[in-house]
């Protein structure tokens, strides 16, 4: 495995939670000086040239996102850092915030300069209390050292950062739900448009960025944007923090350039598959379509290649599955998860995910019938484009692709029911009895 520049994880294990150590490692130095001489427009152009794309899942170019935020609208501009990572298999932000909170704060100062933000929020999920403690300690140090508050480092620029503790709702990772939650409401997504960049938190322009996106900024400002762009693929620059979990020898957080082959990640970084042969890989968290072993052998970890294989790069969370597992069990876990986390606004999602989950439960219990797989596939067809947010597709996508790629597993389970050839009594779907 080739040595790679560590953009986000460079300070891991060096005690960078302390501000003095972080400064010795090059933090709060050249990057901020360089930023404070730039105009907003120049800085946004700079980030656009670095080809940085959002690391949260959708992969939208960061500089372009910033350029949509209207300036001089007379309203305050907010930046909200999305640290509500709840997608199965994703755990990079947890360790990034634990190990290097000051880099997040420095990145946030840079982003705030670009947008003219006075108040920024870090929306951290409720389960991450150790992370919030680490962040608050770092914030205290940064305020005491004069990097936050009024007139930072002798400029006219002021910034306050607050950590907002969420309370356990997966859907708050969606940006409009996150904004609703920040406003003290239920975390239910809003209709777009208006987009948050125009009318977000408290009807002000709001930019929601992932933790890793913000943490890449200090490095980009310390170096040249072209240097960052060079590391990745032509359409997405830089390195990515991958989280590898599941049946591998050394699961964990690894930083590698975009476009690294998938098998290199599994075999060289994570030490190879254990407990059996490779059966499937989820390349971007629990809501993406799985790749089987043949597809995984040719895939590279970047946005374009995975999109061309009809799955998605997502948050770079690879979940490796060996051949001792039945895919129906895993899909049942996902069904449980997404039906539990549906916020309840849109009927197709609220009812559809619950129905899928219950059908899967029956199949796993040995009560499956012959038409069940087709029934699930037809249900997934009703999800696309009719809900406010993509949560229902996050379950619908896996259901259609698991059933298409691993049909044998489903048939095995259904065959366990001695009456599987008989049609299911339609009455079981009646509300109140079936769900």
């Amino acid at each position: 495995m080739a040595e790679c520049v560590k953009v986000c994880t460079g300070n891991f294990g060096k005690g960078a939670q302390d501000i003095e150590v972080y400064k010795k490692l090059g933090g709060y130095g050249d990057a901020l000086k360089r930023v404070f001489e730039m105009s907003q427009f120049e800085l946004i152009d700079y980030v656009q040239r670095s080809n940085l794309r959002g690391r949260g899942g959708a992969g939208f170019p960061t500089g372009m996102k910033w350029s949509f935020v209207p300036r001089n609208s007379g309203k305050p501009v907010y930046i909200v850092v999305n640290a509500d990572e709840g997608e199965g298999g994703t755990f990079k932000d947890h360790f990034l915030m634990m190990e290097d909170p000051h880099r997040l704060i420095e990145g946030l100062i840079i982003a705030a300069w670009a947008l003219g933000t006075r108040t920024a929020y870090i929306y951290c999920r409720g389960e991450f209390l150790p992370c919030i403690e680490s962040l608050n300690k770092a914030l205290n140090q940064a305020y005491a050292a004069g990097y936050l508050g009024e007139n930072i480092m002798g400029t006219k620029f002021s910034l306050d950062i607050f950590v907002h503790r969420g309370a356990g709702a997966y859907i708050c990772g969606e940006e409009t739900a996150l904004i609703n939650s920040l406003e003290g409401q239920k975390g239910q997504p809003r209709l777009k448009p208006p987009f948050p960049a125009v009318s977000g938190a408290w009807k002000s322009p709001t930019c929601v960025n992932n933790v890793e996106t913000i943490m890449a900024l200090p490095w980009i400002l310390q170096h040249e944007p072209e240097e960052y762009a060079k590391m990745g693929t032509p359409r997405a620059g830089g390195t990515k923090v991958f989280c590898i979990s599941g049946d591998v020898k050394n699961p964990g957080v690894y930083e590698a350039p975009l476009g690294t082959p998938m098998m290199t990640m599994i075999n060289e970084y994570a030490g190879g598959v254990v407990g059996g042969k490779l059966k499937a890989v989820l390349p971007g968290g629990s809501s993406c379509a799985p790749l089987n072993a043949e597809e995984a052998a040719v895939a590279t970890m970047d946005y374009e290649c995975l999109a061309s294989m009809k799955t998605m790069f997502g948050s770079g969370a690879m979940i490796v599955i060996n051949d001792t597992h039945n895919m129906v069990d895993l899909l049942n876990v996902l069904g449980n998860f997404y039906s539990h986390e549906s916020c309840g606004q849109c009927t197709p999602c609220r009812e559809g995910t619950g129905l899928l989950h219950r059908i899967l439960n029956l199949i796993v219990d040995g009560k499956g019938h012959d038409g069940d797989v087709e029934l699930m596939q037809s249900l997934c067809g009703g999800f696309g484009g009719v809900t406010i947010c993509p949560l229902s597709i996050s379950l619908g996508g896996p259901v259609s692709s698991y059933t298409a790629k691993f049909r044998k597993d489903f048939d095995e389970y259904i065959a366990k029911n001695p009456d599987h050839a008989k049609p299911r009594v339609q009455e079981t779907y009646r509300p109140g009895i079936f769900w």
Partner: protein
Amino acid sequence: MRNHIQGAVQFVANNRLKFDRPAQPIEALPDPAQSLGHVHKAVAQPSAKEVLDKLSTPEVKARCADLLSRYPVPQGALLEVLWVAQGVLGWCPREAIRWAANVCSCAPAHALGVATFYTMYKHAPTGRFLLQFCRNISCSIKGAAPLIKYVEKSLGIKSGETTPDGLFTILQVECLGACGNGPVMLVNDEFATDVENGQLTLKVGSHLTEESIDRILKWCYAREEKFPKGEPVRDVLGGEVKGHGGHPGAPGAKAQLQSSDYAPVSPVLNVKAEVDANGATLTWKAAPEFTKLVVEKKNGASWASVGEPGVKDKSFVDAKGKVGDVYRMISTTGERVAKPSKEATATQKPEPVEKAV
């Protein structure tokens, strides 16, 4: 009028039996684990006085004032204020939710809706050690389900229940964000895969096993003996941050609005000049807020103004331009003049490539 109302009341009373549906028995879920243990049970509520006495301490008041100063609207602090209440009381009784609504000046019904939407607000008292086990995909692959069964067996309860001595509550939750250590659990607010030197640890590469769960349970019992009256207080919001100015305009905030001129005015970027038969054509990239643009051409040692393109123009043509001329652009925003753009030397425009016939 009165007769009408009386008539309507009579009609409903006469026909009530016809409209009533037959009584439908509501069956409890057979297994609390089916709902992951997040069952909203009807529990005995403490009296209003008891709750308000605990929540009207000076520390809680100061904390709430600090939280309210962070958001432009008091309602923004609702989640945090609910956390404070849960930190003091251990759970969120209805009266505490009403109190939080009062603090954040919103309707109690809204606060109740918020408190029941999020799963981490507890609506019934939990055991002293809340054991939350991740059962999402990564942990399932590594065998979370048998481990949860193991804990249920060794404590003698099911997921969602509390042991009779009030020590442990088991919950099955969704992804905890530590999938590399899967299966993983939270003991109250601490991630744990093992115990080392009397402390819960989450080390890289470690994961829960039956033995390490035994050690964690043992650690909990030892903790109970050491602190019989409850845990040392741990801040539910991860500690206070000192020195912040709050949100401009919020009650108790010192912060002022961002001054509009903190950053220098942007120069024009990417100026290019290309010469063809019509003269030199200039293109550039400019910020949207400019009010005036000036094109200048180098004339010996000084600069001479060539023209002023409109703010929305995309290009500008200097009819006298020829190859080798040096141009620069200066922009003005309001009354602030930016530094000149980088100098651009005019080059010959490449001939359009003719298509092969």
